[in-house]
C-alpha cells in the first residue's frame, strides 16, 4: 500500500511544481500589468486570479490527500487570501503580489522538502505565513483610494449558460421571446443557439404557438439578478435553466502553454492530444500500407509492378510522416525556457534598483526538448549578464537620454534548420577598453596586440573572464561566458556577439532544431559520398577557373561576385582520388558557418535527403572535419561533414601549409596535416 502511495507522490510533486510555476508566471503578469499603468494596484483580471487560485487549491487538495500537513497548512492560508482577492475583498497591490511570490517560493520549498525529506528554512516560511495571515486585517485600514471604480463591485466576468424553452402558449401571454433575446444581448457578449427539435411538420404548425427553444451563452460582468429580471415576465410560461459555467471553459489555456510550464527536471513529457492523434493516424495508415504490400507480395506477378511501386511510394510518405510526428512530440515551445527568466528578472531588478522589462518575441517557436533543457542555463546567464552589466541604473539611463526602463528582448525564430535566439538589451554595451584591459591584466592577451573591436568582444568568451568590478552574488560568479559558449557548442550551435557602446548588446544563439536528424545534401567526391548539412549551404556554382587565385603564402581563394573565400578541395583534404582534377568538371559548394564562407570543391551533387545522425565517437573517436556518420539507403556508411570545422580550418590556413601538389594527379599522395 505504502509503495502505491509513493507512486502517486511523484505525480503530485510534479503537478504541484508545475502549478507553482504557473502561479509564478501569472503573478508576474499581474505585477507587470500594474507596472505598465504605473499604479500600485491592478484591476486584476479574474482569469489570472482564477488560475492562481486553482493552482493553490489543487496543491492544498493533493497535499491533504497524501498527508503533507505543512503544505496543507500553508496552502490553506494562501488559498484563503487568494479567495479574498477573487471576491474583491483584498486588492492586489504590488506589496501583496510580492508577498504572494514569496509564498510561492515557500510552498515550493515545502514541497521539495516533502519530496526529499529534508527540512527547509522553517523560520522564513513561518514569517511569511504570519504576514499572509495578517494581510487581510491590514487591508481595510489602508485607504482604498486606488480601487478602480469603473466596474460594479460584483464586476467579475461571469459566464452564464441559459436554457430557455418557452411553453407552447407563450405568445398568448403577450410575450415576445425576441425581446428577451435582445435584452440579453445588451448585457454582454451573447451567443444564441436555437433549438428546433420540437418543431412539428409543416402541415401541423399553428402560427400562434411557440415551438422554438434557445440556448444562450452570456459572458460579461452580469449578476444573476439582472438575468432573472429579464425573464421575470415569462418565468411561469417556460422552462428555464440559468447556470454559471466555470471560467476555465471560457478561455482554455492552450495546451502549448500547459506544456510550456512543465518542469524541466521532470522526466516526463506532456504532449498535446492533437500531436498524439496525428501519430496514431499515421501509424494507422502505415498498417494499411503494410497490409497492401503484403497482399501484393503474396501473389506477385509483373502485372502488379505498378501497384507495388505505388505502395512503396505510400510507405515512403508514411515513414516520413511518422518520423515528423515523432519528432514533433519532442518539440516544445521556447516560451518554456523564456518564462523561467521572468522571475529572475523580477527579483534581480528589484535588488539592483533597476527598471527592466523582458520582452518575448516568437516564444512559440518549437525546439527539441533536449535542447530546451540544456538551453535554460545559458539563457539565464545571458539575461542575468544583460541585467547586471548591460542595463544601467534609471538615473544613468535618463542622463543618457534613454527611457528609464531598460528592455531585454528575447527573440526566437526559425531560419532554415536552425532556431535562432537573440538576447538583446538596450544597455550600455560592452566597453572594449575595459575588456581589453582586463584581458591584458589576466594575461590572456599581450598589451601590444592590436585587436579589432570584434576580436575584443570575442575575448569575453575566454575561460575565467569577468569584468565586473565588484563580484556581485548575481553574476560574475566564475561561471563565465565560456560556459555559455561551450553549452551552446555542445548542442551543435553557435554564439555570436554584437555590441554598440551606449546602445546595447545582442547575443545571437543558433541552435539546431533537433539533435537526431539532419537535412543534408549528399555530394560525390571520387567514389565517396559525403553529407553536407543543408543549413550550411549557401549555393552551388560551376567553377570559373579564372576566378581561382592563389595569393602568396595563402591557400587557394575563389572570387565569387567580388567576394573572396578560401577554396577547399575535399579530395585533397580527405585523400580521396578525385574523378578529375579539372576544375570545370566539378562543382563548388559555397558553405557558411559562424559568419564565414568557404567553397568546397566536389565532383558532383547527388541528392537532398534527411539522414539519421550516428556518432562516430561511440566506437571510434572524433575525426577532424567530420561531425558524425550516417547510414545511406543502400546500407553503406557516409560521413557528415563538419562545416564549421572545415571553415575554421580553411581560415586558419593550415590545410595548405605543406607544398601544394594539387596540380599533379598524385595529389592524393600529398601530406597535408590537419593538426
Amino acid at each position, binding site marked *: 500500500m505504502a509503495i502505491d502511495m509513493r507512486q502517486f507522490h511523484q505525480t503530485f510533486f510534479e503537478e504541484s511544481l508545475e502549478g507553482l510555476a504557473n502561479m509564478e508566471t501569472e503573478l508576474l503578469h499581474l505585477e507587470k500589468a500594474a507596472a505598465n499603468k504605473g499604479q500600485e494596484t491592478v484591476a486584476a483580471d479574474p482569469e489570472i486570479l482564477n488560475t492562481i487560485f486553482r493552482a493553490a487549491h489543487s496543491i492544498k487538495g493533493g497535499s491533504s490527500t497524501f498527508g503533507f500537513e505543512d503544505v496543507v497548512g500553508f496552502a490553506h492560508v494562501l488559498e484563503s487570501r487568494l479567495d479574498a482577492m477573487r471576491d474583491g475583498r483584498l486588492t492586489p497591490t504590488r506589496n501583496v503580489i510580492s508577498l504572494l511570490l514569496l509564498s510561492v517560493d515557500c510552498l515550493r520549498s515545502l514541497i521539495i522538502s516533502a519530496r526529499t525529506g529534508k527540512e527547509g528554512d522553517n523560520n522564513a516560511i513561518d514569517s511569511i505565513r504570519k504576514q499572509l495571515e495578517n494581510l487581510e486585517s491590514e487591508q481595510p485600514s489602508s485607504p482604498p483610494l486606488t480601487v478602480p471604480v469603473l466596474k460594479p463591485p460584483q464586476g467579475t466576468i461571469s459566464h452564464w449558460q441559459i436554457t430557455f424553452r418557452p411553453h407552447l402558449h407563450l405568445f398568448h401571454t403577450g410575450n415576445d421571446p425576441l425581446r428577451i433575446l435582445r435584452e440579453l444581448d445588451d448585457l454582454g457578449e451573447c451567443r444564441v443557439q436555437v433549438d428546433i427539435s420540437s418543431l412539428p411538420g409543416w402541415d401541423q404548425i399553428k402560427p400562434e404557438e411557440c415551438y422554438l427553444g434557445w440556448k444562450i451563452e452570456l459572458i460579461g460582468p452580469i449578476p444573476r439578478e439582472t438575468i432573472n429580471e429579464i425573464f421575470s415576465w415569462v418565468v411561469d410560461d417556460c422552462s428555464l435553466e440559468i447556470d454559471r459555467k466555470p471560467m476555465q471553459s471560457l478561455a482554455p489555456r492552450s495546451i502549448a502553454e500547459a506544456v510550456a510550464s512543465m518542469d524541466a527536471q521532470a522526466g516526463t513529457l506532456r504532449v498535446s492530444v492533437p500531436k498524439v492523434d496525428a501519430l496514431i493516424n499515421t501509424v494507422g495508415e502505415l498498417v494499411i500500407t503494410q497490409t497492401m504490400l503484403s497482399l501484393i507480395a503474396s501473389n506477385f506477378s509483373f502485372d502488379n509492378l505498378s501497384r507495388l511501386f505505388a505502395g512503396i511510394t505510400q510507405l515512403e510518405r508514411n515513414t516520413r510522416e511518422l518520423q515528423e510526428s515523432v519528432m514533433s512530440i519532442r518539440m516544445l515551445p521556447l516560451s518554456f525556457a523564456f518564462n523561467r527568466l521572468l522571475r529572475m528578472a523580477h527579483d534581480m531588478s528589484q535588488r539592483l534598483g533597476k527598471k527592466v522589462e523582458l520582452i518575448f518575441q516568437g516564444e512559440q517557436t518549437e525546439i527539441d526538448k533536449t535542447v530546451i533543457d540544456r538551453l535554460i542555463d545559458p539563457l539565464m546567464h545571458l539575461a542575468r549578464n544583460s541585467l547586471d552589466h548591460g542595463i544601467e541604473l534609471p538615473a544613468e539611463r535618463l542622463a543618457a537620454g534613454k527611457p528609464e526602463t531598460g528592455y531585454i528582448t528575447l527573440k526566437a525564430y526559425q531560419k532554415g534548420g536552425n532556431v535562432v535566439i537573440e538576447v538583446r538589451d538596450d544597455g550600455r554595451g560592452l566597453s572594449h577598453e575595459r575588456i581589453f584591459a582586463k584581458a591584458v591584466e589576466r594575461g590572456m592577451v599581450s598589451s601590444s596586440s592590436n585587436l579589432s573591436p570584434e576580436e575584443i568582444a570575442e575575448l569575453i568568451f575566454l575561460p575565467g573572464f569577468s569584468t565586473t568590478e565588484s563580484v556581485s552574488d548575481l553574476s560574475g560568479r566564475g561561471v563565465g561566458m565560456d560556459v555559455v559558449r561551450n553549452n551552446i557548442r555542445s548542442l551543435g550551435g553557435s554564439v555570436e556577439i554584437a555590441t554598440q557602446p551606449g546602445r546595447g548588446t545582442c547575443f545571437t544563439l543558433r541552435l539546431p532544431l533537433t539533435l537526431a536528424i539532419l537535412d543534408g545534401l549528399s555530394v560525390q567526391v571520387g567514389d565517396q559520398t559525403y553529407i553536407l548539412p543543408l543549413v550550411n549551404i549557401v549555393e552551388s556554382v560551376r567553377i570559373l577557373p579564372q576566378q581561382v587565385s592563389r595569393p602568396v603564402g595563402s591557400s587557394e581563394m575563389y572570387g565569387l561576385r567580388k567576394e573572396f573565400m578560401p577554396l577547399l578541395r575535399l579530395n585533397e583534404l*580527405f585523400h580521396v582520388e578525385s574523378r578529375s582534377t579539372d576544375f570545370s568538371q566539378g562543382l563548388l559548394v559555397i558553405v557558411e558557418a559562424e559568419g564565414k564562407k568557404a567553397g568546397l570543391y566536389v565532383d558532383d551533387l547527388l541528392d537532398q535527403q534527411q539522414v539519421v545522425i550516428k556518432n562516430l565517437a*561511440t566506437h571510434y573517436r572524433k*575525426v577532424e572535419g567530420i561531425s558524425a556518420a550516417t547510414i545511406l539507403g543502400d546500407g553503406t556508411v557516409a560521413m557528415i561533414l563538419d562545416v564549421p570545422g572545415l571553415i575554421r580550418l580553411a581560415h586558419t590556413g593550415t590545410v595548405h601549409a605543406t607544398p601544394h601538389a594539387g596540380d599533379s594527379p598524385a595529389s592524393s599522395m600529398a601530406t597535408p*596535416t590537419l593538426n
Partner: protein
Amino acid sequence: MESVHALGLKGPQTSDKQFLTFRLDGQDYGISILKIQEIKGWDKVTPIPNSPAYVKGVLNLRGVIVPVIDLRLRFGLVEAERDIFTVIIVANVGGRLAGIVVDAVSDVINVDSEHLCEAPEYEGQQNREFIKGLAQVEGKLLVLLDIDRLVNPESLDKTTAATSVAVNG
C-alpha cells in the same frame, strides 16, 4: 572471463581459456573468445578521412557504426588482396565495438595455462605491446593478442599522430 577461470579451478583437465585462432601472413594468432561478438565476411567499408592507414574505415553493423582495423597494416605487413577467406572479426571490448580484418579464421581452441608462456623480449620491438603471450598448440606456435590494447581508443589516437604521414587514400 571469470567464469572460465572458475571452471579451470575445478579440474586440471578442463582448459583455462578458449581462443579464436586466425591466420595473418602465414602466422597463427589467437584472441580470447570472450571478446569476440561475431565474425562476418569482408564487406566494403567507408574510409574515414585523416585516420591512420590501418583504420580501413567504418562499417554499418545493423545500424551501428563500427570502425574496421586491418591487422596486417596494424602490424606493418603488406596489405593483402581480399578473397573469400578474408573476414572481419567484430570484437567487443568494454562495450566498444571494433572490426578486425584478418586473412582467414581457423578454429576455436583450448589453451591450457601450462602451455602458455611469456613473449620473449627480443620478439620485435614495435608490436610487442599487443602480444599477451605465446602458446604451443599441436606443434604450432600461436601468438595470443591483447585485443583490449589493439582496439582501445588511446592506442588508435596515439598512433594517429605517428602514422598519419604515411596515409595514402
